[in-house]
């Protein structure tokens, strides 16, 4: 009897995780794509040198954006099963992709009026990897230097 209950709970958790996880993911991706389109005009590069010829720079500022996203039960279970056989853990790929793009967008949103982001770095860390009965979540921090041009100068 106990086994059947266990199985039942398992099935309910998995279905909830799958359904709600899928909905949340779709919504998030839509929002991400929209915002990325908006911020296309703000270049971000991972190098020291700014893009193109830049006019005198008024201000250079460290900016950052971070986000913590957690897994749903379905993803966790899939990762656990994957652990058995090895290979690409596909369920986590979307999670991390979303998290990174979100962090970058938050960075760009945090500096209105900036003209460029240079020296972009991205740090990942996991919060309690999701072992026994704990929440598995990943934290992404994106940081870089935002350049503000002198007002009145011709932009690049």
């Amino acid at each position, binding site marked *: 009897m106990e086994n059947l209950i*266990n199985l039942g709970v398992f099935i309910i958790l998995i279905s909830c995780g799958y359904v709600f996880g899928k909905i949340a993911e779709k919504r998030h991706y839509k929002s991400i794509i929209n915002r*990325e389109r908006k911020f296309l005009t703000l270049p971000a590069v991972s190098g020291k040198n700014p893009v193109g010829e830049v006019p005198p720079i008024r201000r250079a500022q460290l900016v950052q954006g971070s986000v913590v996203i957690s897994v749903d039960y379905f993803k966790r279970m899939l990762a656990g099963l994957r652990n058995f056989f090895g290979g690409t853990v596909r369920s986590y790929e979307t999670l991390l992709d979303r998290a990174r793009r979100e962090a970058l967008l938050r960075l760009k949103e945090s500096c209105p009026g900036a003209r460029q982001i240079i020296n972009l770095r991205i740090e990942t860390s996991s919060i309690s990897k999701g072992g026994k009965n704990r929440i598995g979540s990943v934290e992404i921090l994106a940081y870089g230097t935002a350049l503000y041009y002198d007002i009145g100068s011709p932009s690049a």
Partner: protein
Amino acid sequence: MKYLPSLPRKNDNVSHNHPLREFFLLLAGVVALVLAAYWSLGLFVDFAVERISPEREARLFSAAFSNGADKEDPPSDREAALQEIVDNLAPCIDITFPVRVGVQESEAANAAAFPGGRIVVFSGLLDKVKSENGLAFVLAHELGHYKNRDHLRLMGRGIVLVSLTAMVTGGNADIARVVAPARDVGQARYSQSRESKADRSALEALNCHYGHIGGATEFFEAMSAGRGGVDIGALHYFSSHPELKERIDALNDLAGAMGFSSGEVARIRFEREDAGAAEEGRPSGWRDQ
């Protein structure tokens, strides 16, 4: 340099195949692997157990479990009567080490065989089964467990499988939720097959001792009659004993195949003092007039 931004059309950083398909595939793989491991390790344990005789098993376990021979109280009349049946059946089942029977007051209608050579019959069973042959079948079934070394088998399998599961899943609680039921189903199926084997041994012993198999299914029929309510089919997969109806059918089929015939059953006789009967509220007609 110019700045030419664009958004990639296709997201290369994610895989585009359906997660549900992957999930079911992996799940099926894991369950199949567990069942296969169970089956092959089971063969190994069986091979090892065949090498151990019932006597040695009894010696092994009697070091850890006592068989009640050192109990202070003298056996009650019921215990003495049951012990006599067991002693008579022992040569038919080929058991040479001492097996002692005890009776436990309980509403449960059941009997259990403990490692080391001790059988405990619960008094609820004595209420349901009135004939000597019926009781002999139940006792022969328990003796059959000893003969087949079922305790060793089940214990061996349990240890091997639980260790294997722990080693493979590591600390991962999620996958244990999947593997544990698969493992339990395997154990349950094996246990059911051992019970059927014990039923078969009991039937043969009954025929050997009494010359006929009358009363063999009395216990199962009495239990079926009392049972009402909803029967959830799926539960039987996890149950350690086969379904009652299945057991009755199997015994009838076996009797037909082996050419056993039914016969007259004798009522069990417990010589009791009348005072004792009145105290426990038993009908005074317990003793055959």
